[in-house]
């Protein structure tokens, strides 16, 4: 632990540095995209939108739209998604004391997909349907595993798996049975930030802020939960209450995120692992660090997706896996080498 502490040095200094770099990174990200817009034009557009300078004549309506209505909300969405997934993943890994826990494990993603498909058939605003589906799946898992009495992590995990299988199967069945070609190819599964807009960013932000605050408040409890249920209780943690609150809060957070972006795998599983590998288990440190790394990672992947996308949009979920997995494997490999 000693060298790990040394590694991070003064922690608030590190956070400051990370924030600074993140802002820089986000700014650079605005430049990336298929449309050819110069940095000067971008600055001019943003300046004009903020009513600082007049809009240059040479800038077309399309370019204005691209920078202000496509790229910027998309970057904001990437940041929110990154922080939400990584932090929720970290929270789940403590709540369930299982290294394979990820934010979608309680049925959120399959529920959202099924909900979206239902919305597709019955009509309506898809994100709302997806949200309802996600909450339904999640609620089913939590209530069947016993929200009233003791919430047992292993029971939650298993019911989550079962519900995931069930909902996915139901979706596949509906797809197969439907002769509708559109439904057959309808894929909610692979996440994408394509539809990001200020409205969505706003809604997600409004949900993200209070819930992440809650998670930050519960950092101490998350640490204690790692010591086991009985020990946590003996030290004064109301284990059931904490579990329930965190479960409900994370469900809402992830359901909303999934409703807006679809399922973006890997982030919520791997970022917390990476952070723990590098900085240890203490949630006081790892929770904010997970947030930072999650944002960096998703933003980086989305930049990649946008950079290579001249031939069509590559879903973000694919990029996160294609770039995250090899790096993660490398980390594991290095860890092994170091150990032996």
């Amino acid at each position, binding site marked *: 632990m000693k060298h790990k502490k040394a590694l991070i040095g003064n922690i608030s200094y590190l956070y400051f540095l990370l924030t600074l770099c993140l802002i820089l990174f986000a700014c650079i990200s605005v430049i990336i995209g298929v449309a050819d817009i110069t940095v000067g034009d971008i600055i001019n557009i943003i300046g004009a939108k903020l009513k600082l300078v007049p809009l240059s004549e040479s800038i077309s309506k399309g370019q204005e739209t691209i920078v202000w209505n496509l790229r910027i909300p998309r970057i904001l969405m990437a940041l929110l998604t990154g922080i939400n997934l990584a932090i929720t993943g970290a929270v789940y890994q403590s709540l369930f004391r299982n290294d394979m826990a990820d934010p979608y494990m309680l049925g959120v993603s399959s529920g959202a997909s099924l909900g979206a498909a239902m919305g597709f058939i019955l*009509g309506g605003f898809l994100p709302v349907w997806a949200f309802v589906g996600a909450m339904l799946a999640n609620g089913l898992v939590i209530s069947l595993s016993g929200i009233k009495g003791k919430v047992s992590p292993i029971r939650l995990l298993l019911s989550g798996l079962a519900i995931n299988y069930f909902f996915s199967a139901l979706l596949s069945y509906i797809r197969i049975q439907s002769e509708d070609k559109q439904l057959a190819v309808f894929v909610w599964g692979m996440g994408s930030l*394509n539809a990001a807009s200020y409205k969505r960013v706003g809604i997600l932000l409004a949900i993200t802020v209070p819930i992440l605050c809650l998670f930050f408040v519960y950092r101490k409890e998350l640490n204690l939960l790692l010591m086991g249920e009985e020990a946590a209780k003996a030290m004064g943690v109301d284990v059931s209450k904490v579990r329930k609150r965190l479960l409900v809060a994370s469900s809402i957070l992830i359901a909303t995120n999934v409703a807006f972006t679809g399922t973006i795998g890997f982030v919520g599983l791997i970022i917390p692992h990476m952070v723990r590998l590098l900085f240890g288990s203490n949630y006081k440190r790892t929770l904010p660090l997970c947030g930072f790394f999650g944002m960096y990672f998703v933003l980086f992947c989305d930049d990649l997706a946008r950079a290579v996308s001249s031939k*069509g949009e590559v879903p973000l979920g694919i990029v996160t896996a294609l770039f995250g997995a090899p790096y993660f494997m490398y980390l594991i490999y290095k860890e092994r080498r170091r150990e032996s």
Partner: protein
Amino acid sequence: GSKNQGDQTAPSTSPEVSAEVTSQPEQTADEAFNVTITDSTGTEITLTKKPERIVSLAPSTTEILCALGLEDKMVGRTKYCNYPESITALPEVGGTSNPNVEAIVDLNPDLVVGATHVSEEVIGKLREVGINVAFLNEQENFEGTYSAIEKVGMLTGTDEKAAEVVAEMKQKVADLEIALQGLNLTELPKVYYATGFGESDYGAGGDTFIGEIIHLAGATNIAQEISGWSISKEQIADGDPDIIIVPSGVNMAADMATTDFYKDLRAVKEGKVYEIDGDSISRQGPRVADALVEMAQKIHPELAK
């Protein structure tokens, strides 16, 4: 948002075409152009100017646009839009289901036409930034195809040309009907249209467009009971097809003859596995009528010519 219930392809649901022409375009002069239609998402699209920069998000709409003589007004296409061949010179905006929004916006289109596969999100996002998107997810049958052609015609001010194209198609269907009149309805050949085989079998069910084409071509579909595309080997064996039809270009006919189970099917043994142009039969465009004729010729070489 999605409000495309009812007007979807399912024959079980309301067969009416939801797109209604609420105001006839005046075709006298370009400056007086004003048309409003309701597309498959229930959205009203109003054009006050004849579209000059059109992006097509589906091979079928591309074919329709080109058939209406609008090739020179198109500025973007998907990478699957490959007919007519000259269209491949246009810039791509990606695939059908998830095209690149930024690339589309960058083309400054005044109309985007899409069909079936385009994701809701892309449509929603394009509309949000003020681009006209007509999403034509018509019934998967001839009626739906005609209506798609007519709607594109209205939107682009080429109603007359559209009517012509539709009439031509109808004529082909009618001609075929006449040619096939002499068939003995109790002894129609049993046909199976396979899109995939081997590990899992996929064939055109009774409620698919290809199912309708098989029916119109004067044959019994052995997968008539099936809804959708998934079928079991037992059903194929039980149906004992006289003729198997497969899309061309992927070597399916030859593969079938060397694969267990299939090679023992009567149709395969008798060499009655025929290929048909996969693109024209699966795209809801002007070429489906040709596909129908081609199918009929394969099934009844003696009658349809």
